[in-house]
């Protein structure tokens, strides 16, 4: 089985894809069957990936040399593209994680989407989403990865806009798609450059060639290429300037948000950078960019999350922030820490989203946390699991988030980036604060009489419990005392760092202070935020409006683009139109009106003239002699 799973890992993306096809073409009328097909395919994928992961993690040779096999996709002179599978610890871990989380989310969706229109379609999309992500994870080739990358983008478009009767959902879907397209353009350019420079898109081969990139190009070019490639992850993973689509993507059904944020879409960017880390490590400027972008995004998003009111929006900003952490880890050159945080984050973020979905279902899609309160009594499982997620993200030991975050923090510090470390630490504090603000407001405090929440059915709560358990123990694979994780998922040599107690204690303290502050402000003294907001009105407004990023974009559109367009317009009217177009046009028109008598509009008339022409040519050719005549009646002699 292990053998089989490793050699047939391509089945993992194929199965959900087949599920998609089956649902679309066959089982769409039968809702439950469609759901079962979808879940079944994903679960089968999970089984295969679990065995494959087991195989990978028990075979030592696979760290340096990944298991690869491929078939030729297409080839033309100078360009041979294969479709292949690259199985190494990183991708095995990702396969395992994605299939696990996606399976749980799909099971949860059966409960969440019950009674919705387009139930089967939803599962078809989910399957396709999973298939695309798994293909992305498993691909050995950048172009193949790009196809999956776009597949993920397409599915996110479809799923964010799933409630396509709502204008906001349609707009959000478009926004997500367009924003990602801008980023993908950069990625595509980067890939093009890689292909031109190195003549291959295979990741392994690229790794070998980039290690000696001086043979092919100079450092400046490679830096540019790296920045271009990094554009893609900026868009997909919602890093700073292009993060705007991610909060809006909350318009989709909650399981979709969970899937996007936890397991599939956004981590694709991190994963891509992780895959291409060898390139970034060659060019320190690009690496620096990654680190700064990550750290800034983390702090930036966390600060916005402080003031938001909608439950899913807060979670969305928290995702952006956590993704920033991952980028930061990559920027300081640690694949291990980044992937570790990705791993733990997947569990607790999926958990929190699903729990949020459970809350939303119970409250009939009332999303404002200020209108909730005391939900823990009515929804103990949801509340408890959410709290587990909160503890995990706040970095309280022994929950999963603590270990991964701690590793990033200590690496940042030991890597010699004190400023970034400060930003990351501050982010950690803010994270604990806003997350527990959310929890205290939603689950504790006074119950709101207008709400009649009810605990969700087991089909929804069981995935929650499983994820809560994973959030609890998921980090134990990578504690400083038991560095199983780092042995396997790493770039370069494995070196076991001693546990850095200073950072550990600091991060725990930050987390506890954050939680405590939140408790004080939102349980003890509920009006504290009001007062703070009054006092720091400009800051609050700035944060509440997300630093006006969307507005800046709009302003940019309105003034800069429109202004330029205006200038162009005037130029067009007077110069291009006036002189060239109309002038030439007038000449053409006059000529045309002289010639238009020949255009009768009658088809047969044209055909007649056409045949006259053919006749004339044929006669000429027939008369002029044997050589051109060969053109007429062929070479048959």
């Amino acid at each position: 089985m292990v053998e089989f799973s490793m050699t047939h890992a391509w089945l993992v993306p194929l199965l959900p894809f087949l599920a998609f096809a089956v649902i679309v073409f066959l089982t769409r009328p039968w809702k439950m069957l469609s759901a079962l097909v979808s879940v079944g395919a994903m679960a089968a994928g999970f089984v295969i990936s679990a065995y494959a992961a087991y195989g990978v993690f028990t075979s030592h040779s696979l760290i340096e040399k990944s298991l690869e096999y491929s078939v030729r996709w297409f080839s033309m002179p100078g360009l041979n593209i294969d479709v292949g599978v690259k199985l190494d610890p990183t991708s095995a871990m990702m396969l395992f994680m994605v299939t696990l989380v996606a399976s749980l989310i799909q099971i949860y969706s059966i409960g969440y989407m019950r009674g919705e229109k387009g139930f089967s379609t939803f599962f078809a999309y989910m399957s396709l989403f999973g298939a695309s992500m798994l293909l992305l994870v498993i691909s050995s080739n950048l172009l193949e990865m790009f196809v999956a990358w776009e597949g993920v983008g397409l599915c996110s478009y479809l799923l964010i806009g799933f409630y396509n009767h709502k204008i906001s959902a349609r707009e959000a879907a478009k926004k997500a798609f367009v924003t990602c397209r801008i980023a993908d353009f950069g990625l595509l350019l980067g890939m093009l450059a890689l292909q031109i420079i190195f003549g291959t898109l295979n990741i392994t081969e690229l790794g070998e060639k980039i290690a000696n990139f001086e043979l092919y190009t100079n450092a400046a070019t490679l830096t540019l290429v790296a920045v271009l490639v990094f554009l893609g992850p900026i868009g997909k993973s919602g890093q700073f300037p292009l993060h705007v689509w991610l909060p809006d993507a909350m318009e989709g059904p909650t399981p979709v948000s969970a899937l996007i944020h936890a397991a599939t879409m956004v981590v694709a960017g991190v994963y891509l950078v992780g895959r291409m880390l060898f390139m970034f490590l060659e060019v320190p400027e690009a690496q620096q960019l990654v680190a700064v972008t990550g750290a800034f995004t983390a702090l930036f998003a966390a600060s916005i999350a402080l003031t938001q009111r909608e439950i899913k929006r807060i979670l969305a900003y928290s995702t952006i922030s956590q993704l920033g952490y991952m980028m930061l880890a990559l920027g300081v050159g640690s694949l291990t820490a980044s992937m570790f945080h990705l791993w733990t984050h997947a569990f607790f973020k999926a958990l929190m989203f699903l729990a949020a979905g459970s809350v939303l279902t119970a409250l009939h899609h009332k999303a404002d946390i200020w209108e909730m309160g005391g939900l823990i009594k009515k929804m103990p499982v949801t509340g408890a699991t959410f709290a587990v997620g909160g503890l995990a993200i706040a970095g309280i030991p022994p929950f999963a988030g603590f270990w991964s975050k701690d590793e990033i923090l200590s690496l940042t510090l030991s890597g010699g980036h004190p400023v970034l470390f400060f930003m990351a630490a501050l982010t950690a504090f803010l994270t604990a604060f806003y997350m527990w603000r959310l929890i205290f407001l939603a689950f504790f405090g006074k119950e709101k009489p207008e709400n009649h929440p009810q605990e969700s059915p087991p089909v929804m709560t069981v995935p929650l419990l499983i994820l809560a358990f994973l959030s609890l123990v998921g980090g134990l694979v990578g504690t400083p005392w038991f560095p199983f994780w780092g042995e396997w998922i790493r770039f370069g040599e494995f070196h076991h760092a001693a546990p850095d107690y200073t950072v550990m204690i600091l991060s725990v303290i930050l987390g506890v202070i954050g939680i405590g502050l939140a408790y004080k402000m939102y349980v003890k003294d509920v009006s504290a935020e009001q007062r703070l907001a009054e006092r720091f009105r400009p800051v609050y407004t700035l944060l509440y409006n997300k630093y006006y990023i969307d507005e800046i974009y709009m302003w940019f559109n309105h003034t800069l683009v429109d202004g330029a367009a205006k200038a162009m317009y005037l130029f067009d009217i007077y110069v291009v139109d006036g002189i060239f177009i109309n002038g030439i046009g007038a000449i053409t028109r006059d000529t045309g009106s002289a010639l238009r008598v020949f255009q009768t509009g009658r088809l047969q008339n044209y055909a007649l003239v056409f045949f006259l022409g053919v006749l004339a040519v044929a006669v000429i050719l027939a008369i002029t002699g044997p050589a051109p005549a060969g053109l007429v009646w062929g070479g048959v002699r």
Partner: protein
Amino acid sequence: MDNIFSIAAFYLLGLVILGSAILVVMLKNLVHCVLWLAVTFIAVAGLYMLLDADFLAMVQILVYAGAVCIMMVFAVMLTQRKDMKSSSLFNAQFRSAGLVAFLTAALSAYLAMRTAWTSTVMPVPPRTAEAIATLMLTKYVVPFEVAALLLLVALIGAIILAKEVKADD
């Protein structure tokens, strides 16, 4: 092709083909045109038989006489509103059209006669259907599939085109 029967058959079929084709073009009643068209097609099929293309002859009858004519009939029935007796008239340019058509035919006939064709004496092997089938599914499989696709596209296209647009959309 020195057999007296072949020669007789050729001239007979040629006469039928040309005669019925002329009737197709000249007659004023569209339905009569279609009926004569069927005669032309069947005579052409006879010509194929003469040329040792028996499978093709059957295809010709099945597709042209059996299907194309019927589609023409349908089109006539669906589009004709006025008197059928004068439904197939000439337009204003028929004199020049006749000239052009005559010149085209004359030129190509002249060229055909002028050219010295190198024809083989090898007979066409029997069992043409098998041979064509084998070629279609091996050497010409891609054009074959393309043709199938073309038919599908034409089918769908025809349905879409001929389907009435709902008034409320």
